[in-house]
């Protein structure tokens, strides 16, 4: 019944709320004093509560960066856990200001759903995970398999596309809650669990008793550019979200970290001076404090720091930077010029 309630909320909210006007979201956020971000219900490395209830992950960092830019305080956030199914309704209805929640940017979502994608904080692709004991080596061997998947995802669509394109049959088992769908996979109800490869790695590393009992197949069957998403109707708010993420990447490009940011503020490099607000102008243009980028780097860190802290070699997930390395290192992360 909860499902219906949540979706019914949109109808109600859209019907009752005053007609949207430019700047509505940004004004509301400022007045409220904190940013409300939709995050996942728990995918380690992206957004996940620890035993003390403190949330960490690159998506949480993305949210904190927005708060740092806007309020000079990365703590001024409220994280709302949403399942894949609930997230868009939550954003449409105004329950959250922004989704920082491993959400793939697609044409449909960018248009018909009424959203705008504000950059990419993780380049991903969809993969398959199977128990090792099945002896499967390639996704091409999965004909007839039963596949566990969460509803309301691009995952669900890519899955159908892939099997269709390869003339294979499959049986989906579609369960809304991540915990339940993973439990169904681990119990053996499904032969395969599919989602974005990074999240497969996260589930394998943090939710299995023995990660070595499971293998992630080599094929990536889709492109999944994940990033923050806002709703239509407030361009200034979109700008703040977009440039907060860019600032994290730009900081890495400029070699500015949370450790050396105060040092760097003394730099004579005009690029860095402009970035850190030593030379004013950028903050004013964006409608935030001139120290916005300084605050992001100081309180949250640059993109590379966030990646290493949440997904990198020192974490159980142990992801390579891969496509998420800076463009100067052969990756796709490329900050638009801050000037």
């Amino acid at each position: 019944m909860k499902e219906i309630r949540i979706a019914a909320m949109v109808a109600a909210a859209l019907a009752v709320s005053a007609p949207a006007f430019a700047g509505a979201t940004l004004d509301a956020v400022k007045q409220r004093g904190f940013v409300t971000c939709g995050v996942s219900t728990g995918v380690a490395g992206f957004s996940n509560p620890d035993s003390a209830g403190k949330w960490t992950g690159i998506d949480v960092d993305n949210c904190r960066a927005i708060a740092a830019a806007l309020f000079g305080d990365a703590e001024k956030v409220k994280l709302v856990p949403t399942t894949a199914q609930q997230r868009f309704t939550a954003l449409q209805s105004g329950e959250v200001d922004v989704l920082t929640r491993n959400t793939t940017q697609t044409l449909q979502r960018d248009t018909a759903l009424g959203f705008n994608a504000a950059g990419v904080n993780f380049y991903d692709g969809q993969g398959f995970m199977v128990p090792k004991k099945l002896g499967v080596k390639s996704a091409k061997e999965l004909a007839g398999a039963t596949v566990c998947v969460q509803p309301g995802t691009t995952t669900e669509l890519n899955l159908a596309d892939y099997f269709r394109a390869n003339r294979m049959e499959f049986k989906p088992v579609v369960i809304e809650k991540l915990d339940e769908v993973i439990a169904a996979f681990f119990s053996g109800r499904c032969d395969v669990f599919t989602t974005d490869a990074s999240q497969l790695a996260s589930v394998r590393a943090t939710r299995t008793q023995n990660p070595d009992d499971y293998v992630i197949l080599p094929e990536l069957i889709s492109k999944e550019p994940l990033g923050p998403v806002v709703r239509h109707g407030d361009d200034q708010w979109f700008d703040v979200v977009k440039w907060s993420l860019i600032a994290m990447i730009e900081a890495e490009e400029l070699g500015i970290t949370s450790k050396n940011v105060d040092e760097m503020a003394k730099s004579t490099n005009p690029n860095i001076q402009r970035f850190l607000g030593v030379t004013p102008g950028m903050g004013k243009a964006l409608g935030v404090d001139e120290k916005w980028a300084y605050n992001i780097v100081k309180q949250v860190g640059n993109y590379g720091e966030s990646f290493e802290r949440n997904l990198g070699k020192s974490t159980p997930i142990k992801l390579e930077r891969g496509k998420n390395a800076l463009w100067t290192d052969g990756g796709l992360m490329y900050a638009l010029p801050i000037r």
Partner: protein
Amino acid sequence: MATGTGNLGPPQRSAASRLNWNDPSFRAILYQIIVLGLVALTVWYLVSNLQANLKSRNIATGFGFLGLEAGFGISESLVEYSPASTYGRAVFVGILNTLRVAVIGIILATILGTIIGVLRLSKNWLISKVCSAYVETLRNLPLLLQLFFWYAIITETLPSARQALNPLPGIFLSQRGINFPVPAFGIAFDLILIGVALGLIGAVAFRIWAQKRQDRTGQQSPVLLVAAGLILGMPLLGWLLGGAPTEMSVPELRGFNFRGGASLSPEFAALLIGLIAYTAAFIAEIVRSGILAVTHGQTEAALALGLTRGQTLRLVVLPQALRVIVPPMTSQYLNITKNSSLAVAIGYPDVVSIANTAINQTGQAIEGIALIMAVYLSISLGISLFMNWYNKHIALVER
């Protein structure tokens, strides 16, 4: 009685007096018009506001999406469906899946609930206590919890497809559900179905005829025997006409899954068992109170008249108990239907689960919710209408 003698006469029914503020019926109508106007105004405000908001946020609207390709798979379907089918088709599959679990659930919950309700009145201490315990436990645990429980039992305790239990030849029990052989009869299958329909119609017709004959002549006819003969015989005839085929489609493990035969999925099984077990507890209470409502004197009188125990139950106690039982039963049937929407929690593709996916892929929450509401409203009204008709049918005919 003369008019014009002041207050004592009946009120003048002229046009002027009908618009009199002191006339209660005039006031009542006026109030209703005002309330109706306010409601209409509110609805108009909400709808126009909704349209403005949808427009300003550029959210797609309209039911056009139902004709677009759905693009997602559905695990079980009573009709042909593939990811290349439309959203409309997907929702239709969901409606059928909801009806499937609701109809079977209603029938089985009624049977189980009646048995438990009757046994709870048993003179045997153990049996009645076991039934009380059943009712009290199942009624008081949240249904969602029970669904998770049944689903976990099925998926955690049954072996994988490769090690499927094989209790009877051709029947396999595994985490893929129950796979069993079905006749592969081709045209004969349709003839059998026609036979079943003809048999049922024949049986009902015979019963009506027999009743009339008994009213007329007092002679009884062997209704049960003839009905059974018709219902079994007609399909048999269809099978013979179809060439008496004996081929079966037997499930067989190939690759990851069973091919051939038919299957019941763990999701369907868990949802069905959960709904039946939960609702039967409520139905048991309704049946028990219905039977208790018929005074014992009725039974004694019937027995004294020489009716057998079976006839007493069938002709005297049940018809009276049913009048107490049927109205609350209607709401249990509605509950089963509505509770089946918990399906999404354990992955059974009912209409809510599928409409939710459509909502998510298209972003059209309002249309999706409207669809879900229309479906449940139609099913609920259908059940209510049928039950009200049945209730009238069995109502006490006052002489």
